[in-house]
């Protein structure tokens, strides 16, 4: 069965497109729509899709792209979703206005995702049965394979250039400025000039085809604006890696695991750029790809013990493996930084999908009574800030510090505030007693709480010929690091560790509160990558007359302001991307709050949480509580 003529815009069907479009509603939008590319993994689509996203950004219109990829190198389906958003809503919206369906494997489900009145751009070289199409969407067929075959001789080149061709088609139909694409291609292939021409040719072929045959086929438009400002477009993992460079990390030990591998690789890249001694060509850093996560964290702890700033980057399964060592670093009080780029768990779970489900595993990692500092960045900007800060905190507090990123932040380009560094800032190396102080006869007790903040002094190996040496161990010891099985010595250290944790509350990034436009009994607490969807959702709820005060928690232990905020509201929604309401559990237990007042809103199917989801979840519950009437209307 072949595609009905009126639905097909082929080489011979100049009039065909419009006839279909006459009958079907067309979504009209300027700078506010979602385009999704369905591709086959390994077909070279990533650079073409990114080119598309960047071109819109260069026209001053914010975009929020997301990779939705499989645990696979070649052959399985992969998607790239671009939200074009003049308003700067960087969360995932949900729904698709224009599907670029390049993968026969996922054709049927891809088609179903399109909003009524939306658009399907597809390769019309071979006819598509009508049963596999939808009547309420607009079909935009381009015989991509046919054109590519006639134009490009090399079969491998054909596939790659086919991708650039559909960018050309979209450029024409959406009103993107072709000069912007040409400029981006020039930047992308700088130094490889031979590649510019074929790419540009393919792009222009697509562009001309669309101009000739598909005029007006799509009513989604990109118009130049000035809404990007000085914001930068960067992946969280790259930003976190830069934070490690700026934070003075010299040792990185890691084991490859999605979605954290690109963080270690970015660290390598930036170290090559910034940390090679110009005179000797030697490296002012050491990176070890370890044999497993146990070795990674062991190397980090050894380096931390010896006075180097060191970190590892991993994901949930890695944290599980590191648990014993994390307990050692906690109890022996060794600085360490662990960046956890979270993915879907438990077990192997959803290795290429996002979640915030490692909070409990990290906050209380290892056997016995332990508590660890967690930093919760919302975007790449904070990945940079918090990664750099983590090294100061680790040295100051002499304990493992977790930076809790996730796949959504880590592996997607995100528009965010430019990275900033204050040159007057100094690294805080914490309480380290040096040779001069030891010579002056200062009393050194490795686990002695001299300042009342629970943080003892340490010495570094090799510091002094006769003073300050001590034996580090994971077993119980007294204030002078001597082996002890005495209950009193154990209690002294365990209680001092709690005091130290209390000290941490004042040192970690403080929560950010924003009050609603009017007084309300509702509050919402959220963290991390939920942030952009939450901002958008709260805006939409406000338009419906639902007002909530918001608090974005940025660290554990919770500063006292968290308890105050929750106490000031009758109902507080705790919005998270995990099944078990992990932050809520921590809030209830650590702050001794009444669980009934903390209402969990949970999104954990592996896709990033959307504003639509939050609006609906909160609106339903607010309505249920019958506090304030809601206006009817579409959410978000």
């Amino acid at each position, binding site marked *: 069965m072949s595609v009905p003529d009126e639905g097909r815009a082929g080489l011979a069907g100049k009039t065909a497109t419009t006839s279909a479009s006459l009958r079907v509603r067309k979504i009209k939008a300027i700078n506010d729509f979602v385009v999704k590319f369905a591709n086959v993994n390994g077909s070279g689509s990533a650079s073409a899709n990114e080119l598309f996203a960047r071109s819109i*950004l*260069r026209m001053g219109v914010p975009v929020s792209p997301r990779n939705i990829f499989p645990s696979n190198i070649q052959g399985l389906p992969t998607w790239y979703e671009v939200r074009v958003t003049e308003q700067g809503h960087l969360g995932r919206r949900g729904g698709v206005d224009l599907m670029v369906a390049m993968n026969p494997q996922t054709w049927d489900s891809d088609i179903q995702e399109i909003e009524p009145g939306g658009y399907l751009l597809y390769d019309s070289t071979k006819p598509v049965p009508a049963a596999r199409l939808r009547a309420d969407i607009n079909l935009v067929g381009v015989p991509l394979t046919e054109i590519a075959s006639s134009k490009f001789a090399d079969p491998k080149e054909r596939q790659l250039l086919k991708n650039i061709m559909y960018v050309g088609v979209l450029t024409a139909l959406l009103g993107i400025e072709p000069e912007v694409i040409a400029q981006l291609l020039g930047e992308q292939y700088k130094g490889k000039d031979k590649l510019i021409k074929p790419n540009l040719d393919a792009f222009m072929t697509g562009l001309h085809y669309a101009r000739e045959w598909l005029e007006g086929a799509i009513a989604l438009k990109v118009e130049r604006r000035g809404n990007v400002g000085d914001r*930068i*477009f*960067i992946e969280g993992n790259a930003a976190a890696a830069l934070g490690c*460079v*700026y934070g*003075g990390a*010299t*040792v990185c*030990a890691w084991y490859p695991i999605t979605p954290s591998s690109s963080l270690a690789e970015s660290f390598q890249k930036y170290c090559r750029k*910034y*940390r090679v*001694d110009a005179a*000797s060509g*030697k*490296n*002012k*850093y*050491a*990176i*070890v790809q370890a*044999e*497993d996560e*146990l*070795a990674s964290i*062991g*190397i*980090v*702890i*050894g*380096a*931390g*013990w*010896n*006075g*180097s700033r*060191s970190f590892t980057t991993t994901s949930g399964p890695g944290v599980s493996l590191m648990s014993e*060592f994390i307990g*050692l670093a906690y109890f022996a009080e060794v600085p360490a930084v662990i960046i956890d780029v979270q993915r879907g768990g438990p077990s192997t779970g959803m290795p290429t999908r996002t979640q915030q489900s490692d909070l409990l595993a990290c906050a209380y990692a290892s056997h016995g009574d332990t508590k660890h500092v967690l930093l919760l960045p919302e975007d790449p900007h904070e990945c940079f800030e918090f990664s750099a800060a983590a090294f100061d905190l680790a040295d100051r507090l002499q304990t493992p510090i977790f930076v809790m990123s996730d796949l959504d932040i880590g592996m997607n380009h995100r528009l965010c505030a*430019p*990275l*900033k*560094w204050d040159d007057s800032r*100094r*690294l805080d190396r914490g309480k380290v007693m040096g040779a001069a102080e030891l010579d002056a006869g200062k009393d050194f007790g490795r686990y002695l709480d001299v300042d009342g903040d629970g943080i003892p002094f340490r010495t*570094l*190996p*090799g*510091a*002094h*010929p*006769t003073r300050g*040496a*001590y*034996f*580090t*161990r*994971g077993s119980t010891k007294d204030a002078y690091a001597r*082996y002890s099985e005495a209950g009193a010595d154990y209690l002294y250290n365990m209680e001092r560790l709690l005091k130290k944790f209390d000290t941490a509350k004042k040192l970690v990034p403080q929560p950010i509160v924003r009050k609603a436009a009017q007084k309300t009994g509702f509050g919402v607490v959220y963290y991390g990558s939920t942030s952009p969807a939450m901002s958008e959702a709260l805006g939409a709820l406000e338009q419906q007359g639902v007002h909530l005060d918001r608090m974005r928690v940025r660290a554990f232990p919770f500063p006292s302001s968290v308890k105050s905020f929750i106490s000031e509201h009758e109902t507080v929604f705790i919005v998270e991307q995990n099944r078990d309401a992990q932050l809520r559990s921590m809030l209830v237990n650590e702050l001794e709050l009444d669980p009934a007042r903390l209402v969990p809103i949970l999104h954990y199917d592996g896709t990033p949480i959307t504003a639509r989801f939050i609006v609906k979840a909160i609106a339903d519950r607010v309505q249920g509580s019958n506090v304030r009437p809601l206006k009817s209307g579409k959410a978000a």
Partner: protein
Amino acid sequence: MTYLAKPKLHHPTLPQNSLGYTRRDYEGKISTLCAGCGHDSISAAIIQACWELAIEPHRVAKLSGIGCSSKTPDYFLGNSHGFNSVHGRMPSVLTGANLANRDLIYLGVSGDGDSASIGLGQFAHLIRRGVNMTYIVENNGVYGLTKGQFSATADQGSKSKRGAINRDAPIDMVSLALQLGVTYVARSFSGDKEQLVPLIKGALNHRGSALIDVISPCVAFNNHPGSTKSYDYVRAHNDAVNRLDFMPRRETIVTDYRPGAVIEITQHDGSRLRLRKLADGYDPGDRLAAISHIHQHHARGEIVTGLLFVDPAADDLHEHLNTVETPLNRLAEADLCPGSAALEALNAELT
């Protein structure tokens, strides 16, 4: 005896090394191991080696895992920093410490349970990477602290104190290390201090990973007939291929051996390893022959000891990583932080 306090007063005429230190300055806390434990002899050999080499005690970092052997770093070099880490994981902690400060001397002490069972992976990867260190395995074939279970180095057919026979094949740390590219490897016996001390000295002066597998009988759980790691068995089956004399760089050579009876090897730091040959034709520069020799003799129930292989031109992990000469933990902030101007330039590229 562990309940006796260690005397603080020492004889005024104790011999001093070139730094003016006596052996007492290299001691640690009093041992809590069983009387007669082979491990205490190894601690004494370490003390002797460091004293003779006139190493400043605080220039050594001593690391261990968990077990009887891993407790011993508390019993020597009391002026050195020590790290008793987690079971089987000394190699990674030591690797990290070494990366942070390449200027210190690294000594890892472990046991057969710690390194051949739970920590076999970390042992293997440390050797592969050539971390510059001395790795001493205090090998007694049993778990002492948990009361006498077999470890992975126990020989097939050897008998436990309770009479159980070990059916599993043993792991030979020396052969394994040779296969993994170790650049200095020796086997010795805790009861033979004369052999052991120079081997430790050679190892401490070796660049790269130096492994010494020291058979160290467990008097409590593995020193009975039927054990292949008892004092009696090792004495009866010790088959030394050579005797090492370690000579620091500046020491003059006195030759009093017949030609062909001595092999002399100069290490990267100029120190010399003079090997008096005991086995005909044994070449400590031939990795494959070493593995074959060890296996042939093991099949006969013999324990091959001595300096079994050395590559004096070895490099180490720092060479592989091309790190700067300054220890990473001493790099100044200006070396580490690229500053705001670099970040602004980068911001401009990220659009």
